[in-house]
């Protein structure tokens, strides 16, 4: 039998450290009772059944989908053409965009929430719109990096020049040539953005709270009521994120294939 070397042991330890809380949450979501024994007293799916029968949960799930999905789509529609114009026609502006990208990391969520409340409360603008607007700005780093890298990979400036010389307008060349070639990058950026917004709690809780209960706010409320239900929500959320991550990996492989094509 092959002996495990130190690198294998450290790998197993890291995996255990990472997956133990997830495994414990999964088991707790399936346990009938798990208070006084080492292992659960029995296994059941009743917490999941209860969760999916709970209409407010489904509503919260729908709201999270709606808020994250629409915000991501809006951010992509606004930012991808803007990043394209900057990268291809005004590369000197890139350093300013990079500064903006850094600024979104520099402002902590709580401070941003307080600032937004002070600025927009009482203006008549619905706070859910303010939240969505803040989300759009917050997505800039993820969409910028993904889109810029894709544009550079396909040598977007050369493709645009070739298309223009063949009689295409800039808009037509962008839609017919650039967008299809950077689509894997856009999809990866979109999925990443969606998953980040789906798990966001601080802003939405402070700006709209119970008036627009998302999955994270629902989970927060359930934490004090039932550990089993909260675990079932966490497991559902984890599975959902795993599916999104899987899709992102699939599309990023597509992106790598495009890179190989562009390089050949």
């Amino acid at each position: 039998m092959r002996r495990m070397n130190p690198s294998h042991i450290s790998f197993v330890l890291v995996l255990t450290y990472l997956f133990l809380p997830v495994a414990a949450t999964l088991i707790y979501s399936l346990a009938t009772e798990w208070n006084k024994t080492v292992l659960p007293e029995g296994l059941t799916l009743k917490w999941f059944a209860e969760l999916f029968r709970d209409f407010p949960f489904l509503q919260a799930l729908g709201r999270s989908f709606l808020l994250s999905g629409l915000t991501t789509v809006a951010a992509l529609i606004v930012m991808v053409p803007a990043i394209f114009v900057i990268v291809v026609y005004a590369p000197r502006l890139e350093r300013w965009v990079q500064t903006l990208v850094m600024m979104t990391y520099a402002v902590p969520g709580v401070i941003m929430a307080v600032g937004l409340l002070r600025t927009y409360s009482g203006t008549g603008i619905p706070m859910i719109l303010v939240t969505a607007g803040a989300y759009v700005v917050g997505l800039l780093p993820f969409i910028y990096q993904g889109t810029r890298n894709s544009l550079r990979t396909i040598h977007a400036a050369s493709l645009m020049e070739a298309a223009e010389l063949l009689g295409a307008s800039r808009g037509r060349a962008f839609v017919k040539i650039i967008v299809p070639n950077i689509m894997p990058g856009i999809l990866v950026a979109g999925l990443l953005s969606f998953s980040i917004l789906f798990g966001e709690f601080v802003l939405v809780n402070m700006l709209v709270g119970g008036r627009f209960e998302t999955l994270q706010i629902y989970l927060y409320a359930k934490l004090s009521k039932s550990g089993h239900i909260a675990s079932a929500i966490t497991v559902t959320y984890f599975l959902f994120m795993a599916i999104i991550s899987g899709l992102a990996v699939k599309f990023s492989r597509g992106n790598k294939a495009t890179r190989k094509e562009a390089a050949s």
Partner: protein
Amino acid sequence: MSYVQINHLSKKFGQQTVLQQLDLTLEKGQLITLLGPSGCGKSTLLRIISGLSAPDSGTIRIDGKDITTTRPKDREIGMVFQSYALFPNLTVAENISFGLEMKKMPMAQIRRSVQETIELVGLQGKEKAFPHELSGGQQQRVALARSLVTRPKVLLLDEPLSALDAQIRKTLQKQLRSIQRELSMTTVLVTHDQEEAMAVSDRICIMDAGRIVQQGTPHEIYTRPRCEFVARFIGSYNVLTAEELLRLAPEFSCSSAKLYAIRPETLRDQEMEDGIAVTGTVDNVTMLGNITRYEISAVGVRLFADYLHHSWEPQDIGRKKTIYLDPKDVIPLDDASA
């Protein structure tokens, strides 16, 4: 009036002057080559003709029409880029038909034109392939077909063969020239490869520091360089000062020129009528395929002499050798910097 007229074209990038009051004319159906070292402004000139860059001053007229400020898409100019810039998401046929679709031509006509052009460049059977499935030579032919299919008024080729290996490059040079002649396509080729320029051009323009320093047929350019830059760039000319030439051949009667050029292949190794004998030491012998190049030092002057390759290996290094110079082969250079 010439088909393409470029007058007093100037372009600066920041403080750097890339094109200086450049004038160039081109007749319909001619293939002209812009030849020069990197950074001499040849690609910038091509981009200005295409409309991808704007000149600071000067005008460009094609077929009598001033297109200096016309948008690239409306200039009716085709261009093959050094990187080909094929659209990765489109097949060969779709890449070629792109320009015709932009012109909103009927589908039946597009199909016919695409098929004809594919046959012209010899890409039959590759219609449904994507660019990454093709070799470099095939990609180059797709790029050429894509530019030709719209029948542009002028075709611009920006070092289209530089990324290919020597064998394919030679084959494609011939194919390019034959297609250009068949379509009588007015063409501007940019290259830094003098052999390529010689092989395909009707006229060559030698560029240096944003100016055309000499233009003429390949024969004129090769046999009658006007200045030191052209003599050194176009071949391995021996460029000598008047003083060096008189040291080598005291009986030579110099003109007022300060610099002289001698082609290496005109220095014979057999005695000839009116030939001036020069004896020196062979410092090095280099095999250049069908040519053997001798480096000879004589009275402190280094000369290159080329001879057709013999079947035996030359064993002349370190030996004395006498070569013969025909005074008619000494070309005076009118070089301002001399």
